[in-house]
């Protein structure tokens, strides 16, 4: 049984339920929800509140009738497409992430950005709109102190790290607000691989951070 100690915040679950987050954030949240029955139940409760809001809400008239919809169904029979099992599936990677990977984690074309630090970019958005990537840090690595302009979600895929907030292990999520500064260091004896999604670039502090910033690009 997995033991999750760091969960999603209520406001992130609310935003996820309302459907106002981008695809990278949704992917990361779905990974955590796969491993965390507690947050899954909280998300179901948020959906139930969404349902009540819908059921109690105002109504407007529809031109299309129920009969039209049934006729539409008869005229356009469905051809079901069965979703494929992702290639990276089962290797400790939940499906929402595995679907985005061309190979298992260790075979990815990682790019080194510092000693013991490499990344694999998943994002297709321009950098200023945020980042979406896997980061792999060797045991003992220490990230430069950094902060975020908006929101950063980190999902730990394997290994662990510790920072000012405690120890983060596989399955945990770090749901950080904009004003949070942290200095994570890897304390597992295997590399710590994490999935990161932000909705704005990360700002590094200190000299090393300034040097690394252009290469990390998070």
């Amino acid at each position, binding site marked *: *049984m*997995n033991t999750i100690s760091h969960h999603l*915040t*209520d*406001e992130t*679950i*609310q*935003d996820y*339920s*309302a*459907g*106002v*987050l981008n*695809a990278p954030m*949704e992917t990361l949240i779905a990974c955590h*929800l*796969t*491993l965390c*029955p*507690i947050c*899954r*139940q*909280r998300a*179901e*409760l*948020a*959906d*139930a*509140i*969404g*349902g*009540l*809001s*819908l*059921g109690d*809400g*105002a*109504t*407007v*008239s*529809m031109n*299309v*009738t*129920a*009969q039209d*919809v*049934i006729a*539409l*169904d008869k005229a356009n029979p*469905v051809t079901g497409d069965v979703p494929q099992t992702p290639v990276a*599936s*089962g290797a*400790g*990677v*939940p*499906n*929402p992430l595995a679907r985005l990977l061309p190979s298992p984690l260790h075979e990815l074309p990682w790019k080194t950005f510092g000693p013991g630090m490499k990344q694999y970019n998943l994002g297709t958005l321009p950098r200023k709109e945020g980042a979406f990537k896997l980061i792999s840090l060797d045991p003992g690595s220490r990230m430069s102190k950094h902060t975020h302009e908006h929101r950063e979600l980190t999902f730990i895929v394997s290994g662990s790290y510790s920072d000012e907030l405690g120890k983060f292990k596989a*399955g945990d999520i770090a749901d950080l*607000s*904009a004003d949070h500064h942290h200095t994570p260091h890897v304390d597992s004896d295997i590399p710590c691989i994490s999935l990161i999604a932000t909705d704005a670039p990360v700002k590094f502090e200190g000299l090393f951070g300034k040097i690394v910033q252009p290469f990390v690009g998070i």
Partner: protein
Amino acid sequence: MQKKLLQSAKAPDEAAQALTQRMRDNLVAIGKYRDEAAFQDLYAHFSGRIKSFLMGKGTQESVAEELTQEIMLIVWRRAESYNPDKAAPSTWLFTIARNRRTDYLRGHSRIEVELDDEMLEIDDSRPTQEEQVGLLQQSQKLELALNKLPQEQRQVVHLSYFRGKSHGAIAQWLDLPVGTVKSRIRLAMQSIRSELVSKEIK
């Protein structure tokens, strides 16, 4: 003592409960028998609300009409997968409407947990909310809990679902610090959760 207080606070709304039950029966009948009369009844209740819900998020009327038609087509086709023990009909329709809107806005599907994922962690030791209170009662209690929230907390919940705003955008819209909006959401969720649990146990 606690139970008495809560019971006297508000009598259960039997009409609302009957409606939830009827919509639930409708969905089950559609799933099992392709019952067209049941679909018409469900459609009469939900289609206009879904359209209104989409328009509230800034979708223009003609698009909202078309999306609602597609959403109701999905409901008709997938009613078999509706589990009456798992979710209220309104919850199920809400998730379909939300997901279809996401597909429309960005051209690919919302990303969700896959229930057949071999990584899926299931905790049998925790009773589900449904097991704790029963599904119909849960809807009922949830509604009462929502109605009891202070106005400022209900407002953020409302803006979230009806205007499709993130908590950051709600803060801007209301001209409030983000921290204030976050704490309102947290307080709202805490009191709803404790309401759902306490009523059954005490």
